[in-house]
């Protein structure tokens, strides 16, 4: 916990938190990082393979092959989510499966599935972006700012 948060606690609370933290199970940070690296990298490797498949076997360029590749990765993630397997992989892999676009697809599919019981409009439709919504909002906003900066710098004679 950060120091700022800790300072808001009374001395008794701080003492307790230290006491409690000493009794938590240790986390194998290095091993977790390795798992995340391997799975995250593995997914990207698979994505690269899919892109190459489209490049070699169809009439795509490097740029346009990205579209069917993303579609295939999204489909894979959704199938694994629906099969109830994605979350088990994620529990093992950690951050490795959170990489877009598979993590994004999983979050939307999982939310949509969960809220089917509340109907299609308010449930599936309304709650589908429960987790992905903030990614979209901040992604678009960041893109907007970067776009402004790029245009501004270009207008001033920069790159």
């Amino acid at each position, binding site marked *: 916990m950060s120091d700022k*948060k800790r300072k*808001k*606690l*009374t001395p*008794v*609370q*701080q003492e*307790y*938190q230290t*006491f*409690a*933290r000493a*009794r*938590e*199970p240790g*986390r194998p940070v290095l091993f977790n990082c390795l798992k995340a690296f391997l799975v995250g990298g593995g997914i990207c490797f698979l994505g690269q393979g899919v892109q190459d498949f489209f490049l070699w076997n169809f009439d795509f360029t490097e740029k346009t092959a990205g579209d069917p590749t993303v579609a295939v990765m999204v489909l894979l993630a959704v199938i694994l*989510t*629906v099969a*109830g397997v*994605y*979350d088990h*992989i*994620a*529990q093992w*892999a*950690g*951050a490795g*499966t*959170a990489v877009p676009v598979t*993590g994004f697809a*999983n*979050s939307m*599919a*999982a*939310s949509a*599935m*969960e*809220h089917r*019981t509340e109907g299609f409009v308010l449930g599936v439709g309304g709650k589908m972006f*429960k*987790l992905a919504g903030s990614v979209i909002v901040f992604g678009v906003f960041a893109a907007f700012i970067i776009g402004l900066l790029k245009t501004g710098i270009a207008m001033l004679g920069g790159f």
Partner: protein
Amino acid sequence: MQQGHQTWVFQNKPAILATAVVGGPFEAEGPLAEDFDLLHGDLWLGQDSYEKAEKKMLEEACEAAIRKAGLQKQDIQFFLGGDLMNQIISSSFAARTLAVPFLGLYGACSTSMEGLALASLIVDSRAGRNVLCGTSSHNSAAEKQYRYPTEYGSQKPPTAQWTVTAAGAALLDREGDGPKVTSATIGRVVDMGVSDPFNMGGAMAPAAVDTITAHFRDLGVAARDYDLIATGDLGKVGYKIARDLLKKHNPAIPDEIFTDCGLLIYGEDQPAVLAGGSGCGCSASVVYGHIMNRLNKGELKKVLIVATGALLSPLSYQQKESIPCIAHAVSIESNKP
């Protein structure tokens, strides 16, 4: 009758006529499967939603308890129920089916003992006969409400716990053939500033210690007066913290009589549960099933159950609040010599 600061002593010793416990597929694979009255192989219980499944489980537990006591729904005078769902819909809808005068409770995972304490008070003070108290929890319904969608790929830390899919109900009356409820200590809300919803054990341990200490102080008893002292759902982390806190501040509870329902309900071969079981159904199913069976057999003579609850909501967590917790203790004695 009140004794000390926050404890009720039940002079008339209400009897637990019958209890019933219903569980889900995960609980069926656990070490206490034999102590369940009914186990379901399907998390949905054939219903349209997790919430409806939880309601069905609580109904089944209540109806089974009434049946085991040889009574009918009409004989029940009061029903005290609570659960983890928003607006405690599982209990309210189960109460609709039972058509019994209903008192809804919310104590998070401490609801089982909150209900038992109040039900005992009603019976002991002659304010009612045949009082039913019950609670339930459902893994998927709880995950959906408190954390992330069930199929979402987030990694849970080793301190996280697994909400038990189970419902437990107990039926009390003035006299009868069954274990007797002898006292109850009502806990106060304790908040040690822990704000991680994936570490409930760490948040709840101080509340358990506070209530246990109050119980011993109010009644002038010691840990050794009991054959078993079980907390509701502290899990591996919370149990360790509570045990060490008690050793540090006295009264220490000997390891052989101190246990936790969250540790009992699942086995070592179920690593998905991480730190252990949690939820209203955890303490209810272990106490009203396994522990009640041991009391009925005479294996245990006096037990103290300390159900622990974390009183947070998904909103309070998002608003950067810490997790206030509570623990209620109830002592039960076997009627076997």
